[in-house]
Each structure stands twice: as C-alpha cells, then as structure tokens.
C-alpha cells in the first residue's frame, strides 16, 4: 500500500468551510425531514385508531409503498419525476428555499421515515393497557382528549428506543442526496476528494463526523428513554 497521509492538504482553499457547510446542510436536512416524518407519522398512527376501513387501506398502501421502494429511488422520483410536472418558474421559487435538491430530498426522506414512525407509534399505542382509555373516558373525556392527554404521551415514551433508531437512519439517509448533486456532508467529501486526491484523509474526517453525530444521537435517545421511563416507572 503506497500512501502517505497528509492532512494539511485539507486545510487550504476553503475546504474546511466546505466540510462545515456540508455538515450544516446534513443537519438541516435531518431536522426538517424529522419534523415532517414525526408530524405525519403521528397523524397516521392516530388515524389508524379510528378504524375506518377505507382509511386503513389507504394508509396501509402508503406505508407499503414507502417501505418497499428504496429511499434513493424515492429521491430520484421526487427530484426528477415530480419536479418535471411543475412549470419552469417553480424551480426559481425552489432555489429561494435552498434549491430543488434540498427540498425534494427532505420531502422524500421525510415521507419514507413517516411510514416507519407511523407503524412504530401504532404498536406503541397498542401496548398501552385498555384500562387507561377506559379510565379517561369514564371521567368524561372525549376520545380525542383521551388520546392527547393519556395515550399518546405514554406511547411516545414506549416508542423512544425505536424512534431513536429511526432518527439515526434518517440522519444516515441524508447522504443519499449527494446522488442528485446536493453538497451535504458526503457530497462535500467527494468534492474535496476529487480536488485534492487526499481520499483517505477526507474520508476519515467525514467518517468521524458521521460517527460523532450518530453516537450523540444514540446517547440522546438513551438519556430521553431513561428520563421518561423514570417518570413513569410502572
């Protein structure tokens, strides 16, 4: 193996700010996609509880579509496919909010993750003893109020480990946006690689950053899980 390490080559030419910019973009994508996934997933889980046949069927189809098709294909479908359905002027608007690559990637990743979050919340809700709902309804609370105040808070606590896992996967999936040219962390790494040929060094930096954030997310999840189950300790 003929390779001499040279990290200093990475310090010039604005490369550090490119890496930093990539990291920020990745984190922004993660946050926005997560909010979308969480909001939509919660909605799906609650809608499922209504037990309307047609609605359940529609949601099941949505979940199946988003879980069975690869994430990359979803991104390609949105960026190349859906974008082509809009008129050209639309793309100018897109560029004002971060560019089509950013927006469509966030939508694609958010929707796919919402399918998983919805299913995870659904099984968490089912794990709550029916006596809880009975007690809430016996006090006179409506179904929605019982859901909001009694069932969902407990369901979230139960779901924290799986939701942490989903967040981690979401964070890693943002890297797929580099396939359509978005300069997030992986994209920045590749750009610097082709400019400096210092592949090992830049990959090491990018890897370290990914691992760092992943570990942080895992610790955050463990902390939240501990805190909320301590408050509830059955």
């Amino acid at each position: 193996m003929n390779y001499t390490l040279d990290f200093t080559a990475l310090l010039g030419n604005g490369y550090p700010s490119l890496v930093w910019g990539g990291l920020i973009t990745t984190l922004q994508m993660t946050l926005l996609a997560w909010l979308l996934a969480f909001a939509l997933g919660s909605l799906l889980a609650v809608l499922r509880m209504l037990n309307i046949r047609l609605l359940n069927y529609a949601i099941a189809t949505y979940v199946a579509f988003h879980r069975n098709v690869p994430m990359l294909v979803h991104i390609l479908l949105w960026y190349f496919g859906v974008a082509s359905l809009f008129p050209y002027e639309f793309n100018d608007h897109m560029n004002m909010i971060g560019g089509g690559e950013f927006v469509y990637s966030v939508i694609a990743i958010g929707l796919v993750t919402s399918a998983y979050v919805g299913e995870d919340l659904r099984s968490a809700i089912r794990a709550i003893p029916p006596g809880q709902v009975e007690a809430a309804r016996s006090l006179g609370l409506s179904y929605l109020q019982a859901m909001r105040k009694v069932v969902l808070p407990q369901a979230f606590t139960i779901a924290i480990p799986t939701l942490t896992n989903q967040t981690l996967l979401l964070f890693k999936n943002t890297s797929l946006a580099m396939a359509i040219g978005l300069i997030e962390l992986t994209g920045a790494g590749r750009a610097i690689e082709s400019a400096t040929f210092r592949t090992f060094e830049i990959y090491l930096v990018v890897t370290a950053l990914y691992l760092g954030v992943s570990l942080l997310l895992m610790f955050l999840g463990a902390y939240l899980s501990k805190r909320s189950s301590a408050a509830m300790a059955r």
Partner: protein
Amino acid sequence: MIEFKNVCKWYGDYMALDHVSARVAPGEVVVVCGPSGSGKSTLIRTINRLEPIQQGQIFVDKVDVYNCGSLDELRSQIGFVFQQFNLFPHMSALENLMMAPVMLKRASKADARKHALELLERVGLESKADAYPAQLSGGQQQRVAIARALAMKPRIMLFDEPTSALDPEMVNEVLQVMKALAAEGMTMVCVTHEMNFARDVADMVWFMDAGKLVELAPPDQFFAAPASDRAKKFLQDIRR
C-alpha cells in the same frame, strides 16, 4: 337514580346479563355480589357504557344511557373506580385529579388545584400530591383513583371490585374512604367481595348468579336469611 329495565347482554349463546331489572334510589348504597362470572362487573360497566347492551334500557337520572345527547357529558357525572386503579402513570397524583376538570372546562386551573388538594386531604394523601403512581402503594393508588373520580363532582359513584387487587393490609384504608363517602349521602353501587363492608354500609345487597339478578334484600335480611338456594350456597362458600 339508576334504573335497569330488562337489561340483556349476550355473547353468542352465553347470557352475560339475563333480563336484569332493578332500581337504585338517590343516596342509596348498593353492594352487588355473587360468584365469579355472575355478571356483576358487566352490570356495573353497562351503567356508563363501558360495555354495551343488546336489549333493555338503563336510565341514569331519567336519562336513557343508550340514547343520551352526549355520552362524555353523562360519563363526567358518573364516577368510576376500577379494580386495577388505572391511574395515569405519566402524571403526578395532583395532575391525575386536575386533568379532567381542566380539560373539560369545568374549572380553572387554580380552582381545580384547590379542589384536588382538598380531595387528597379527604382521602388522607395530601402529602403525596406530587408523587407519581409508581411511587405509591396499591392502597394509596386506589385512594387517589377515588379522589380522581370525585374531582368531577359526580352524582353517582361506581366501584368495580375496588379492593380485589390490593394486598390484605391495604384493603381497610380504601374501605374507610368508601364508608365516609357513603355516610355523606353519595349514591353508590359497589361490586365487591368484602361482605363486612356490605353489612356495615350497604342499604341493599344485590345477589347475581349466571347473569340473573337472583335476590335483592337489605343486608340484615340477606346475610341472616337468604331467600334463594344459590344465595345460601354462595354465603356458605365464602364463610369457609
């Protein structure tokens, strides 16, 4: 106050409730007893529609339970205490009591808090206001559950085997609370195995067997000289 008219409930061939007709007068304390599977829990759960019925009618204060305007409104006027307490584990005792009055706009947060603390004092647990259910013993949890039901200022209190899930040494503290409630004139229907409670406090004893309301009598009469054979057998079995 509560009226059952020919109430029937069945699962396939099995009659859980068999033409039950009875009345509970305001301020009356009724104890429902009988062997397991007799339908006593089912009966009490039909009053606030936790269980539906297939035939017959149930009236609470002249309102048809199965044809009322707002079920939630009706339920808020009936207090229900569960065998498994069913306290909300993610809220403190105080929050458990305050949640429904505030959510249903019956009281401001401040008033709800005040009332909740008074109720906790009534059941002897004012010091545990900020404790979470997991930190309370079974008897304490059930007392909080009773206070929670009272927080809605109900006109009727229903108890579904309130002491059956408790260790023996904690049964008394809960029964004390229930006795005090009865003494204040609350209309109560209790499903219970605690026959001493029935003897001391009940105005009427209802004996159920296999879904049928077999016998209704004041406690003195029921325990001393039960009319039906099944009641006689039941009392023999539990006397040991």
